[in-house]
């Protein structure tokens, strides 16, 4: 690990201004992703700004009837929150399907959204990887790609976003609230938050240098029945091959989002509208234009069958 200075932030505005003004600065929240990557020198911040002292760890209701989730709310606490359990069950289920109890006790809401890919070549600093080192190439294209993206990718990068929580957040139309270096605030709908992997897949979100996430807002509850099904190589403590977040309104309609297939949670309103026609119709729309590799083409059928399984279980 490279050495770094360590600072505790006092206010969100100050943290954002300092991070923007200090080259090589990074925020640290739970540290469960950042420290892992720092040990491998994939991340090499020269200054760590500890944001854990900021007052951003509460869940409150919004005037619109929704929920404001502070950026520092722990994954365990968000999953266990009574309102989330009863009104946003898909979010509880997604969180509880991720990582381990120990990690969820450290991982934060904002850190979870910003965790980086688990592509094996991103982690192996001996290998070419455009995300780690722009322009070096992508070892995954002809390599081990079983875990990687089937849709939305680019020739430069076929990494997936590994978060379970983000899939549920996307389904629920979450909005990300931030503060910028000049103290101004902005609201980013989660569907606009993650950027497509272009020539420099190292840029993953629309966040500007120093921009600090302060909260995630959920709109008023959707109602309906909530499901989160994660398919993985072992029953617990593994990243998704494919995951399906689903809310059904009881009248044949609803919403679907997929994890494990793209660089961001994958959802489209056109595909949602096809739910009454069944899993095949939804997936042919949602995964239209998919360009899987030889190793991960199984994900397309797996996604369809996972959704079909949930739909038939819901009919019982």
């Amino acid at each position, binding site marked *: *690990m490279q*050495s*770094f*200075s*360590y*600072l*505790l*932030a*006092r206010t969100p505005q*100050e943290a954002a201004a*300092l991070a923007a*003004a*200090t080259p090589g600065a990074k925020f*640290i929240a*739970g*540290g*469960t992703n950042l*420290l*892992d990557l720092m*040990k491998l020198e994939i991340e090499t911040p020269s*200054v*760590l700004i*500890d944001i*854990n*002292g900021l007052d951003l760890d509460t869940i409150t209701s919004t005037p619109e009837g929704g929920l404001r989730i502070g950026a520092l709310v722990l994954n*365990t606490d968000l*999953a*266990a929150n009574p309102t989330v*359990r*009863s009104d946003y*069950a898909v979010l*509880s*289920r997604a969180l*509880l*399907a991720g*990582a*381990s*109890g*120990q*990690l969820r*006790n*450290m991982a934060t809401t904002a850190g979870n959204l910003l965790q980086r890919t688990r592509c094996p070549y991103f982690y192996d600093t001996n290998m070419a990887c455009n995300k780690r080192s722009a322009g070096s190439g992508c070892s995954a294209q002809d390599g081990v790609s079983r875990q990687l993206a089937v849709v939305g990718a680019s020739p430069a990068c076929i990494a997936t976003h590994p978060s379970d929580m983000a899939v549920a957040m996307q389904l629920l139309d979450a909005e990300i609230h931030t503060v910028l270096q000049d103290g101004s605030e902005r609201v980013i709908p989660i569907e606009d938050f993650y950027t497509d992997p272009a020539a420099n897949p190292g840029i993953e979100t629309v966040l500007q240098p120093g921009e600090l996430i302060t909260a995630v807002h959920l709109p008023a509850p959707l109602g309906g029945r909530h499901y989160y099904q994660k398919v993985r190589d072992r*029953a*617990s*403590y593994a990243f998704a091959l494919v995951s399906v977040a689903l809310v059904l309104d009881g009248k044949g309609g609803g919403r679907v989002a997929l994890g494990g297939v793209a660089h961001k949670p994958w959802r489209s309103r056109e595909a949602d509208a096809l739910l009454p026609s069944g899993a095949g119709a939804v997936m042919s729309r949602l995964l239209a234009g998919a360009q899987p590799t030889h190793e991960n083409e199984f994900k397309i059928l797996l996604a369809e069958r996972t959704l079909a399984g949930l739909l038939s279980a819901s009919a019982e």
Partner: protein
Amino acid sequence: MNSEDSIKPSRRDVMVVGAASSALLVNACQSATPTTYAEEGPPVVNETTSTVTLEVNGTPHRLTIDNRVTLLDALREHLRLTGTKKGCDHGQCGACTVIVNGRRINSCLSLAVMHAGDEIKTVEGFGTPDAPGPMQAAFIREDAYQCGYCTPGQICAAIGVLEEIRAGVPSHVTPSLTGPVEASPEEIRERMSGNICRCGAYSNILSAIQSVSGAV
């Protein structure tokens, strides 16, 4: 017992270093209200060590350490509390599990400097060989280990698991998110999945935890 004696000098060494050095960030790490920022302009940020007081098993230890030191390495290398083990060092095995402010965490993925003011408990804090705590005694009684390397992490995780169940925190296998949470074998298995045992002592680990949960 010999090892107990041999660790004492190095513990004193650490204290001496701690007293001798005054880093920029002493105040920041000592109190909840940091004082590291200049009034105007960017702060001076070239200190790569910090002084922090870690409260471990009820005893405060003042340490001046490199910012890179993880909580795990601070416990093992600086405080010589070698009960807590390093397996993967990347959050994947659970060997480094300790309890911080009542919750189990992976000490390998946390910086020591981030734990000023926290209440840290390691396997040493739950009992001694002569007077083991309930979970430690259950692991011995149920023969819940072979080589024992994963055991301190398993014990701390298990203590955390029963606390989470008691507090009603649901898990991936909890049938209803709005119903009660019970210490069933399925629940314990799922909640213990962050602790890997290379020897495969899993079934006896489950028995040990169940025997304690029954007693609670």
